[in-house]
């Protein structure tokens, strides 16, 4: 029922479509600028923001450095509290585990809390193949699912849709999945939210199995933490009999006290709120081990690797694992604003996606090899990141991997990969440019040649030069270079 990211074209081609779509451009511009400004105000309220940022970075780095120990500690704590922990090396294994767990309950419907990890592994598709219907209950995820669409933002997956489009999706699709949209539904946000509320309530009350991710897992206590805005997550986490949480292994923090930092930085960075409306925490089945009838009576935690351990092995790239999925980097990114989330070909769009996807999935495909170049390296993402991920540094590092090949860890094994296809001419050009620039005589000759070409003034260049001249005039060439002027003026050889 949802779209797929398989076989995505390279970023520039996908982005071209988005750039030429005026409705999409307007939707994205309005949404990103609104949230960008709100975030800036929410962050400016805290005098110790930079220290919180440094603390968040330090906690995550510490957790990652000792990930092996923290995960085992987490498993012990969750197990002691009545939960069951499963380890999944990749998407297939995670999907097999979850599908098996759902089938074993005898139920064929699940309600879902918004979760990036389950989207990353394509869980809904795997469940569907096993005859299990998975209902997204986050409002924006519901819009995406009903619209047979793909998410285009981490926090606001339907950011590319305006309310008229949402009204049309609800009217056309709700009836096929449950309670239909009310007759004559308008596009007022209140009306749309009410239609979703009525539609979803039936699902909440009927579902026996809930599936979630988690924002954090506390190693010392075995506590899972979900931040959300709508309360729909709270419904899914408390009403069903069986709760299954699929969580990336990098989500672990050592102690309960560490949450104090992220309870401040995550809401302000993502929704620009001082505190998110709903924070749900649970530790296994609670003190009664589920016997009190309050909350689920079975809890399964599926710990997902899916490329994370390999990413952790990379000294530069591993900082991407600090990400707390706030999406502040998307909201400030001028490339994301114009290209839209779908162009990134992954559930992780924007700057963080451009550094996560090529690491988690490798750089073998056209889209993944193009993602490190989907940035001007303007640095706005790094500036707002609440865990100080130097995204431009990772982008350049990954460009090197794409253009030159080099050592990577794949499936725990250190290997040398070859350069991605299509970089041979560029490599030769870069080398030639360096040779020219590193030889003063050749450089002077080149500049004289350029000065002589000034009367040509081409409006369009052939070949790769077209990429410049399709949208821009070429610079007007000067009569002489600076060094020629200097030599003439000062009588020094330059």
């Amino acid at each position, binding site marked *: 029922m949802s779209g797929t990211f398989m076989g995505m074209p390279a*970023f*520039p081609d996908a*982005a*071209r479509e988005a*750039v*030429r779509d005026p409705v999409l*451009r307007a939707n994205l511009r309005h949404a990103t600028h609104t949230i960008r400004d709100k975030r800036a105000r929410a962050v400016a309220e805290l005098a110790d923001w930079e220290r919180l940022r440094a603390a968040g970075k330090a906690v995550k780095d510490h957790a990652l450095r000792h990930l092996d120990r923290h995960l085992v500690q987490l498993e012990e704590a969750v197990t002691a509290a009545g939960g069951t922990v499963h380890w999944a090396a990749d998407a297939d294994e995670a999907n097999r585990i979850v599908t098996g767990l759902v089938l074993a309950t005898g139920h064929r419907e699940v309600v879902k809390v918004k979760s990036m990890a389950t989207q990353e592994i394509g869980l809904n598709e795997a469940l569907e193949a096993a005859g299990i219907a998975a209902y997204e209950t986050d409002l924006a995820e519901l819009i995406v699912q009903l619209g047979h669409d793909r998410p285009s933002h981490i926090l606001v997956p339907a950011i590319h849709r305006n309310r008229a489009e949402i009204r049309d999706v609800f009217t056309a699709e709700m009836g096929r999945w449950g309670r239909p949209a009310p007759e004559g539904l308008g596009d007022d946000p209140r009306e749309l939210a009410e239609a979703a509320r009525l539609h979803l309530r039936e699902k909440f009350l009927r579902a026996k199995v809930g599936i979630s991710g988690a924002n954090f897992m506390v190693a010392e206590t075995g506590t899972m933490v979900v931040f959300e805005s709508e309360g729909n997550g709270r419904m899914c986490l408390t009403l069903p009999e069986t709760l299954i949480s699929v969580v990336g292994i990098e989500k672990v923090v050592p102690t309960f006290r560490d949450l104090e930092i992220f309870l401040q930085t995550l809401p302000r960075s993502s929704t620009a709120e001082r505190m998110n409306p709903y924070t749900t925490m649970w530790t296994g089945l609670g003190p009664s081990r589920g016997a009190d009838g309050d909350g689920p009576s079975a809890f399964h935690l599926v710990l997902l690797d899916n490329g994370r351990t390999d990413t952790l092995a990379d000294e530069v790239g591993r900082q991407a694992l600090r990400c707390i999925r706030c999406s502040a980097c998307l909201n400030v990114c*001028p*490339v994301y604003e*114009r*290209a839209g989330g779908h162009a990134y070909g992954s559930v992780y769009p924007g700057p963080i996606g451009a550094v996560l996807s090529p690491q988690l999935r490798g750089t073998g495909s056209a889209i993944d090899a193009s993602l490190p*170049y989907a*940035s*001007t*390296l*303007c*640095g*706005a993402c*790094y*500036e707002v990141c609440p865990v100080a991920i130097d995204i431009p*540094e990772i982008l*350049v590092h990954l*460009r*090197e991997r*794409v*253009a*030159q090949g080099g050592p990577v860890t794949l499936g725990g094994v250190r290997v040398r990969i070859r350069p991605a296809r299509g970089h041979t001419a*560029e490599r030769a050009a*870069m*080398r030639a*440019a*360096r040779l020219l*620039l*590193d030889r*003063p005589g050749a*450089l002077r000759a*080149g*500049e004289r040649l*350029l000065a002589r070409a000034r009367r040509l003034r081409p409006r369009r260049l052939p070949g*790769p*030069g077209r*990429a*410049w001249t*399709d*949208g*821009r*005039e070429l*610079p007007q*060439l*000067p009569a*002489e*270079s*600076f*060094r*020629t*002027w*200097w030599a003439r003026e000062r009588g*020094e*050889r*330059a």
Partner: protein
Amino acid sequence: MRAALFVTCVNDALYPRTGIAVVRLLERLGVGVDFPAAQSCCGQPQYNTGYRRESEPLLRRTAEAFAGYPYVVTPSGSCAAMVRTHYPRIGRLAEREGRGPGLAALAEELVPRVFELTEFLVDVLGVTDVGAYFPHTVTYHPSCHGLRGLGLGERPQRLLRAVKGLDLVELPDAGECCGFGGTFAVKNPDVSVAMGTDKTGNAVGTGADVLCGADNSCLAHLDGILRRRGEAVRTLHLAEILASTEEEPLT
């Protein structure tokens, strides 16, 4: 005081008038200018595109060309940021990859002596009023590597506000990237031009005659879009405005 001009390859080949403006400006302020002829490109195009090894000889060349100068001044925030932020990293990685500590030592020795033009004027010379005259309405685009990479802050605007006759108008969304981004401009031309079109649209909307910047590579991109669209706004490097005086106005 003497300073070495690091003109940068883009200015050398395409915007000599910016280099000439820096020479005139600094000399007017009593700074003797040298132009070490061995200088070339800082290596940023290679480095940022994923060819770090190709940037190593250019790091060496740049460091050696400017050896011994207490002040190396460059009219490019981007090239200054390349030296300050990335040279140490290139050196570190070269050493780790077994090519010895030479590059790291060269980088370490060069970094504290390199100043972007507005840093040199405001921080080293301690001037904001450079005695310039430019009777036009100007809006300023702070390029990313100067703004976020070097943390130039308000230095350029303070210099512009002190220019006699100049009316500085604020550029909406000034801190947003113009879309040049080095090879990004040709690797992702559609997004690049879309960003530049929004930026130039904002500039045109201010009613300014001049869109000023402190990085000619960004200005080449913006100027290319302005001219393609037939806009009257022209782009100018900050140095050229600061070099302009009542006696010798910029023509």
